[in-house]
């Protein structure tokens, strides 16, 4: 059994608890939820009875009791394997829930009474609408909105990110989550959720799988599996009298073995594990989905609506080019820009330094020592005063003003350069040395690395990307072209976003979007898949069906792929399971009939040693294939973006053709191993 070797998807603790719960799940009441495996369990009970009373149905045969016992044992193991698969998937969720639960201690809260006095009560007694005061070093008792104060808050309990975040009343950074810690200052919070229904509670419940309901697609697939089970049940029940008429008396245990081989036990045993593992993959990704349905819907997404700032671009304007005015050497501008940014800690300043060095600036820091002039909203420039000169960089108006005061000349082509940069959607920073204007730094909103390829991949699987931005159309077009999105909405207001979503949905498309602000909440609710940022407002989180704990909007791309992978895993294993039946027929049909009809041996193309070894080999294969496929069910089938036709062809080859061939080989190998054993046992 391979699960001992693989360490990635299972740990020692999970293994232990899963084994225990695999036995616990044998309870028929629990098994009933999985009809396919329930049938196997019933088969087990019948075979067990036949082990002790082999002549119950007047079956005849040598060592019938032993044979029935072996069949019963294999059936028992089959059920156990299926339960184990489910337990492992659940175990992984539980392990994660445990860590979350640790943060959920019973905290005391300082409630502010109507008369303004403070009262200490237990957090569990807090109701929606209560106002509490939380000071540095204290846990926030429940989800809420800050109504007064500013504080930095450590959210590592939920996000795993240790750097504290700043939260203040009003705006998009007012929401706080229960279980996080105030690191500095104080805040007053109005509680927004009932006790026991906080975000943390919901997350724990979701991760634990307590509220897990079967998704629509899972229900549909389950229907198919149950109907297949029923069909094969009909086949087996009717086979008994039909065979009897033809002079073949099939022992009941053999009939049960045939039935269990034919019903889709492989997918039936792994189905719920696949679903849980899919959710788990999303959770591991630090995204909490409110339902499995949302993850499933991800697979169907046709259109992604993405905010430009933060999702597609860094949002910081970074230096991308130096544009010297005429008569100035590029090196002079480069060096001046370097000196002016030497102590500038802003992203603009840092990126200017980087660009200058990249372009060959080799100045010595010591030579440029002087005093740093920090940027301020009134001067709108920053720079460095060295022993030789004053270097400044800033907005073109401000720099021109300074140069004019010093009686310097404004170069004729400066305006043209500045306008050019603005038109491209960039920000121009003009650089001067004393009264001489040297040129312009082109600050550009930079597309995150790798996104262009990502969008290309999405296009391959038929997903359209639309970028939303508040920029003017020209700027939007520039960034859109650079990122390679399929469409953009410039000067986008929140209502434009909803309109865009509705338009796509009217065309029959499923839309996914990310958002964080209160403004985004209606759009998040309208979208089929809405991913809210944990840093966002609680309104946004409430409206979305997924929350990203790391607040990284690009994650929507991965989540879509996880959704697809989940469905693919289900489909592939179903195909595999059904395709297996061909080989099992070739093993069992000749085995049960060849005693009465010796010519049937022609169909024994695997040349299995004896009828009983053929039946048992098929049954054993049927059992061991389940644990062999658990890693696949946990990790999901390999996913590579390609067109639907190509992907279908590929998966059909692997799981369809493979599903036909694999059991032929597997059953033959098992037969080779067990045939001598069975001879010793006299079966």
């Amino acid at each position, binding site marked *: 059994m391979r699960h001992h070797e693989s360490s990635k998807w299972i740990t020692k603790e999970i293994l232990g608890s899963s084994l225990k719960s695999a036995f616990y799940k044998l309870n028929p009441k629990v098994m009933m939820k999985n009809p396919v495996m329930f049938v196997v369990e019933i088969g087990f009970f019948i075979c067990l009875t036949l082990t002790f009373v082999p002549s119950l149905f007047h079956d005849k045969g040598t060592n019938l009791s032993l044979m029935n016992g072996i069949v019963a044992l294999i059936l028992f193991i089959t059920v156990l394997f299926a339960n184990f698969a489910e337990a492992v998937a659940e175990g992984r969720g539980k392990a994660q829930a445990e860590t979350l639960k640790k943060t959920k201690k019973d905290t005391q809260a300082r409630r502010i009474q109507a008369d303004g006095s403070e009262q200490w009560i237990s957090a569990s007694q807090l109701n929606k609408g209560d106002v509490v005061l939380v000071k540095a070093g204290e846990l926030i008792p429940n989800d809420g909105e800050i109504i007064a104060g500013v504080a930095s808050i450590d959210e590592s309990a939920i996000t795993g990110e240790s750097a504290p975040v700043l939260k203040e009343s009003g705006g998009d950074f007012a929401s706080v989550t229960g279980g996080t810690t105030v690191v500095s200052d104080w805040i007053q919070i109005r509680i927004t959720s009932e006790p026991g229904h906080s975000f943390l509670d919901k997350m724990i419940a979701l991760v634990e799988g307590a509220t897990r309901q079967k998704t*629509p697609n899972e229900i*549909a697939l389950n229907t198919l599996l149950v109907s297949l089970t029923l069909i094969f049940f*009909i086949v087996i029940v009717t086979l008994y009298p039909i065979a009897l*008429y033809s002079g073949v008396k099939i022992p009941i245990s053999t009939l049960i073995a045939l039935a269990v081989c034919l019903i889709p036990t492989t997918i039936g045993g792994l189905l719920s594990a696949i679903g849980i593992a899919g959710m788990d993959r999303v959770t591991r990704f630090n995204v909490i989905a409110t339902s499995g349905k949302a993850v499933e819907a991800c697979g169907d997404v046709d259109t992604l609506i993405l905010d430009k700032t933060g999702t597609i671009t860094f949002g910081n304007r970074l230096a991308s080019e130096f544009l010297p005015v005429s008569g100035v050497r590029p090196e002079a501008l480069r060096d001046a820009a370097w000196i002016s940014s030497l102590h500038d800690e802003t992203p603009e300043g840092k990126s200017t330094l980087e660009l200058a060095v990249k372009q060959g600036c080799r100045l010595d820091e010591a030579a440029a020592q002087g005093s740093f002039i920090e940027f301020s909203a009134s001067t709108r420039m920053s720079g460095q005063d060295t022993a030789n000169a004053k270097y400044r960089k800033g907005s073109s108006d401000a720099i021109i003003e300074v140069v004019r005061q010093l009686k310097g000349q404004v170069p004729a082509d400066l305006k043209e350069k500045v306008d050019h940069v603005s038109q491209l959607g960039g920000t121009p920073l003009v650089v001067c040395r004393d009264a001489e204007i040297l040129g312009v730094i082109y600050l550009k909103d930079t597309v995150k690395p790798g996104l262009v390829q990502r969008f290309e991949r999405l296009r391959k699987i038929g997903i359209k990307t639309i970028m939303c931005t508040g920029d003017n159309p020209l700027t939007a077009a520039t960034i859109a072209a650079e990122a390679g999105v399929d469409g953009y909405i410039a000067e986008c207001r929140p209502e434009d976003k909803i309109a865009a979503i509705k338009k796509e949905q009217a065309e029959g498309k499923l839309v996914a979007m990310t958002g964080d602000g209160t403004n985004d909440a209606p759009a998040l609710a309208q979208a089929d898949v809405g991913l809210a940022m944990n840093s966002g407002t609680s309104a946004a989180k409430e409206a979305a069906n997924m929350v990203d704990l790391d607040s990284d909007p690009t994650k929507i791309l991965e989540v879509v792929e996880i959704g*697809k992978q989940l469905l693919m895993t289900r489909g592939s294993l179903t195909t595999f399971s059904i395709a297996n039946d061909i080989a099992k027929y070739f093993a069992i049909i000749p085995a049960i009939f060849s005693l009465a009809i010796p010519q049937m041996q022609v169909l024994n193309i695997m040349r299995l040693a004896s009828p009983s070894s053929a039946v048992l080999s098929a049954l054993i294969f049927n059992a061991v294939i389940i644990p062999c496929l658990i890693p696949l069910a946990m990790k999901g089938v390999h996913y590579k973006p390609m067109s*639907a*036709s190509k992907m279908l062809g590929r998966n059909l080859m692997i799981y369809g053709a493979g599903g036909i061939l694999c059991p032929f080989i597997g059953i033959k190998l098992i037969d080779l191993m067990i045939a001598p054993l069975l001879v010793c046992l006299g079966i």
Partner: protein
Amino acid sequence: MIQIICTLVLFLLILFPVGNYIYHISAGKKTWADPLFDRVDNVIFKSLRIDRSPMSWKQYALHLLLVNACLVAAGYLILRLQSVLFLNPNQIGNMEESLSFNTIISFMTNTNLQHYSGESGLTYFSQMAVIIMMMFTSAASGYAACVAMVRGLLGQRMGNFYEDFTRITTRFLIPAALLVGLFLVWQGVPQTLASNITVTTLEGKFQNLARGPIAALESIKHLGTNGGGFLGANSSTPLENPTILTNLAELYSMMILPAACVVTFGRMAYDTLRQRKAANTKISLSQTDSARGKGMGKEGRTIFLVMSLLFLLGLGLCFWSESQGNFAVENSGIVQPAGNMEGKEVRFGIAQSSLFTTVTTSFTTGTVNNMHDTLTPMGGLVPLLHMMLNVVFGGAGVGLMNMLVYVIIAVFICGLMIGRTPEYLNKKIEGREMKLAALCLIIHPLLILGFSALAVACQSGLEGITNPGFHGLTQVLYEFSSSAANNGSGFEGLADNTLFWNVTTGMAMFFGRYISIVLQLGIAGSLMKKGCVSTSAGTLRTDTPTFAVVLVVVVYLFAALTFLPALALGPIAEALTLGI
């Protein structure tokens, strides 16, 4: 071999114009014959005060069932009272209850399983007022259900049952039956109301020669994929099928409607998909490429190819096996240069016999021009298997409906494999559709295997079996497959006119027909209400060769595997013991 190829190629040539015509009837498009038929239809609708407004799927199914129930009641009375009614020159008595029950269900369900012999069991009036009438109405019912299902799948309203039922009858079945009937009369098929005649044979013996309105029955028998012969020996007698030309005419008539339904589906699907595309891309319809809609559209072509492939595989096996001859005969030292000629008409030979056998069971007609009981085991496996599949073109309309259920299953599995929740023709396949489709899948094996098991387990069933061993089991399987698939061909040899067989096959026919139709209409009704999802590069395409191959495999896996154990004990065991 060349004979078979020529026959099939010629069929393709007539399929397209006829399919095109049926498509126009189904989609309510103008045809050149409208001025005449519109008047006829209007008279019918006005005089019967029929409401022509569209129906929901439940209404559609209910009206179909009600109309069929009324016809069953009327037909049953006629059979029970036929001796005293008119047009009974041969003095035939009333039909017994259980046989009447079986016969009436058999004809209303388009099965035409006959536990009686026409020449001795029915009066001319019964032949015309019950048998021929039901041959028209059962075919029209099946077709109507099919068109309604296709409309639902495509998101259109289901239409009006009476409208569909009347349009196909007046615009296609009656005119075509008239043409084929006249052709048969020209070729020598009797058409008279005069009584049977007694002739003196060459040996000086007397022989009763049955006649009657045979040509009229013969034409609709095939056009409506009915299959019940006027005479007991069906299309193997020269009175029903005198020449190679009538043989061809009968072959083509039974193939045309089921195949034309596929064409109709393809064309309607093409139109709908094109309209959706145009609406989404804001291009006017005239700008989109319309040339490819001719023929049968891409969706229709996939289904046609799948059915054709299944058909050709079966035909190949049957033809090969019959050409090999019977091994038991060969082992006894007799040479069989012409193959297995037992039970075959010399004038048709192996090629036309195996073609007819495969066609009649694939297109679920049930007429025979040779005795299926005497086919070689593997040759007999083919008609049996094709009735178990029940999707190889199938009966008028219902074959396509069954295939669409398999398409839904295939789409479900394939859709998942490309990482999307499944969809077909822009409609999402979800729990409700899967439930109905799954029930459709279950009902067929339940009827065939359940009743077969019952027959071999109880004394009254066993009494009907006339052959020992594996062949006896094949007889039983064949009888119930033929009933459940509404095929009606007999393996013959079974002593089937007993209470047990009349009642069990009657039930198999009834449930096999109506449960499936109601479930399938339910699927269409549920899909109809759904919004359309858009198509992109990530959508599963159902018009590709890959999908066609998957569909073939799904049909074999889901339908054939179910029956494999039973087949192994029947024809396969027989073949193996004979040494293939």
